[in-house]
């Protein structure tokens, strides 16, 4: 039954979990396989490797938060479950980046949309990056395996009113509108997936793969930020972690050294390249951290005549790919249209307003719908992505240049979203852009959006999907790891998370990570136990 919390049960059964900020934390740990990060990639790898009989240690810089803590408190969630208390941005602060930081990683706070990697994306990786065994036929069993494990199926209930705006408007315009597959079991349709699911309905890593790994004898070290890998003669000889406390402060006085036979980086597409860079891992062609993709997001808000209560109900249930591959894989920038939930703090933070404008828009929140566009970056020479770099203090930051290729996609997305919102009956529409006003009709919006100046800091840009930075491929001149996630220059190191993707996905990435990591971890398990 869904109310049985697997973490609570595990703690009672004596799981081996240490918190590095505590006095009793170990200073030295050993395991067959050491996994850094417990998100989509780390959780999946841990499940598969521990089931294969290997001793697995998971290291996570965030805390262990679970059902007892998930009380639908938005500000608590930002502070405890999000990287940098949800204040992470790109280097010039032009793009806000949402990423997870607790056991379960971003899967603890994600919105449950679960798509297989689109076929054009897999084909592009095969053709352009020489990735092996990556076509749909090869990958289908791995996606199927994870869909079974995580109970992934198209959302069968009615979409909430917020998502209905995209459904109704899109149908009016003759778009191909579909239901989103979600990784949920007995979902209460509440809408708080981004705060830590209070019912455990969301089949995140926290309640599925991580408990599996722990029940198979795995071990977990929390509040431990991996600072660097110790490299000796083309091998990882160990790694060091520093305690990171609940208030996001490093505590250099508490450290732990960890040793293993094999090491897996699953710290996400900012964290994993950062660890390689801090460790000065061999990188003869300077590729580590390059080709970082964000699915840059732009959004419109619309005031609807009836309440849409954008804070209630399954947050994402409707999408359209009408504009995603309209111009082919490598043409103009394509985008996927979806709907985000809007709770008070998130809404207040994204609007980019103050004074009367902020107050009036916030007072209308129950009537506000939002539609967003996920830009499919990385498929064009003018879309090379960004780069993860280290600040002098060792902290990573993504530098993501913005150019006209992106802006053309942004303008097109503003237009399509506005037309859709008006088609669904919107009274007014406003792109999240510092120079935008409220547009009362589609014709007014069309004219005004054509003239909006598109540049950094005027356009409100977001990303919840960080990918790339440790590109996979067979050629070590163009990739950091091979097709199966093994580092080209360090033979007991793998990367298993969203950072291996050679481009963005063109769809919300979690199932792409689950499927690919299931494949690569199974192969690694066979090698290590064989």
């Amino acid at each position, binding site marked *: 039954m869904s*109310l049985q*919390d697997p973490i609570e049960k595990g703690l009672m059964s004596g799981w081996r979990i240490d918190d590095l900020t505590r006095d009793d934390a170990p200073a030295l740990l050993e395991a067959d396989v050491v996994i850094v990060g417990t998100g989509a990639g780390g959780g999946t790898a841990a499940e598969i490797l521990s089931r294969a009989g290997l001793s697995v240690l998971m290291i996570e810089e965030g805390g262990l938060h679970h059902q*007892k803590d*998930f*009380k*639908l*408190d*938005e*500000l608590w969630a*930002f*502070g405890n479950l999000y*990287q*940098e*208390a949800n*204040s*992470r*941005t790109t280097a*010039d*602060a*032009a793009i806000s980046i949402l990423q997870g930081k607790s056991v379960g990683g971003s899967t603890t706070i994600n919105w449950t949309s679960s798509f297989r990697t689109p076929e054009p994306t897999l084909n592009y990786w095969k053709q352009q990056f020489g990735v092996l065994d990556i076509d749909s036929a090869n990958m289908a069993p791995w996606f199927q395996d994870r869909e079974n494990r995580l109970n992934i199926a198209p959302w069968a209930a009615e979409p909430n009113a917020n998502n209905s705006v995209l459904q109704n408007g899109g149908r009016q315009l003759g778009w191909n509108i579909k239901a989103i597959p979600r990784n949920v079991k007995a979902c*209460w349709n*509440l809408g708080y997936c981004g705060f830590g699911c209070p*019912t455990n309905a969301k089949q995140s890593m926290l309640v599925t793969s991580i408990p599996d790994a722990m029940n198979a004898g795995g071990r977990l070290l929390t509040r431990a*930020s991996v*600072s*660097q890998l110790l490299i000796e003669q083309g091998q990882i000889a160990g790694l*060091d972690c*520093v305690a990171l406390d609940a*208030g*996001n*402060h*490093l*505590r*250099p006085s508490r*450290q732990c050294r960890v040793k293993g036979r094999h090491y897996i980086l699953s710290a996400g597409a900012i964290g994993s390249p950062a660890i390689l860079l*801090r460790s000065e891992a061999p990188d003869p062609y300077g590729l580590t951290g390059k080709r970082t993709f964000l699915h840059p997001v732009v959004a419109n808000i619309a005031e609807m005549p009836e309440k849409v209560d954008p804070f*209630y109900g399954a947050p994402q249930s409707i999408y359209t790919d009408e504009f995603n591959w309209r111009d082919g894989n490598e043409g103009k920038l394509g985008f996927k249209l979806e709907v985000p939930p809007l709770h*008070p*703090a*998130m809404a*207040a*933070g994204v*609007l*980019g*307003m*103050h*004074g009367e404008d*902020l*107050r009036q828009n*916030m007072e209308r*929140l129950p009537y506000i719908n939002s539609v967003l566009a996920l830009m499919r970056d990385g498929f064009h020479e003018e879309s090379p992505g960004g780069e993860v770099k280290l*600040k*002098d*203090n*060792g*902290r990573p930051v993504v530098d993501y240049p913005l150019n006209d290729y992106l802006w053309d996609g942004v303008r097109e997305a503003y237009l399509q979203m506005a037309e859709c919102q008006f088609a669904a009956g919107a009274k007014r529409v406003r792109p999240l852009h*510092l120079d935008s006003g409220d547009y009362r009709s589609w014709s007014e919006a069309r004219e005004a959006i054509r003239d909006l100046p598109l*540049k*950094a*800091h005027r356009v409100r840009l977001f990303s919840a999907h960080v990918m790339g930075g440790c590109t996979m491929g067979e050629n070590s001149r163009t990739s950091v790891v091979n097709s199966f996630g093994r580092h080209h220059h360090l033979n007991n190191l793998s990367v298993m998370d969203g950072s291996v993707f050679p481009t963005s996905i063109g769809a919300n990435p979690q199932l792409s990570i689950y499927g690919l990591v299931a494949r690569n971890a199974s192969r690694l398990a066979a090698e290590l136990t064989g």
Partner: protein
Amino acid sequence: MKAISMVSCPPATATSSTSGLSRRTFLKRTAMASAVTASVPWIHGCASRPMEAMPAQPDLSDDQRQLFLALAPVILHRSPEESEPVVDRMGLAIDSLGDLNRSQFDELLALLTFAPTRVAIAGVWPAWEDASQKDKEEFLEDWRSSSLGLLNAGYIGLTKLTAALHYGHPENFEHSGYPGLPVAVQSLPQFQESPV
């Protein structure tokens, strides 16, 4: 040992000597109206000063408090009394942003609270506690509409944190028409007196 290099900048507010350099750099930049780059002072531009991790600093300084007491009512379009609780929560919120963003924020606040830079970059002559409604409104509007991305980013930083701290607090849910938690969740174990 490399782990030591993963520690962070000192708080810019702690001493005047650490922030002096950034103020000069900043003034030079604005004077030249130079293109805004990633090396701007408060956006991920903290200088190379590897040392101990930043100590916790959960309280605003007096100057910072005056700044937010002055700005929060204008940002939120609410009375000083209604805005004060946000200011009370601000210190802890900034402290928990993580070293990188916290040091950027500290730099921004140092520039806005140090009189010469307040005048130069915010155009506000009187101290914040004496600034008129018009001064404060113009400051926010100037930063919002500026063609310098740097100022836009500062505007977003100040308004986003203030607005999120206000609207995210249960006391203010009615200000956004958010009815609060769905009733059904009250049956969940975490809402019971003694969780199962």
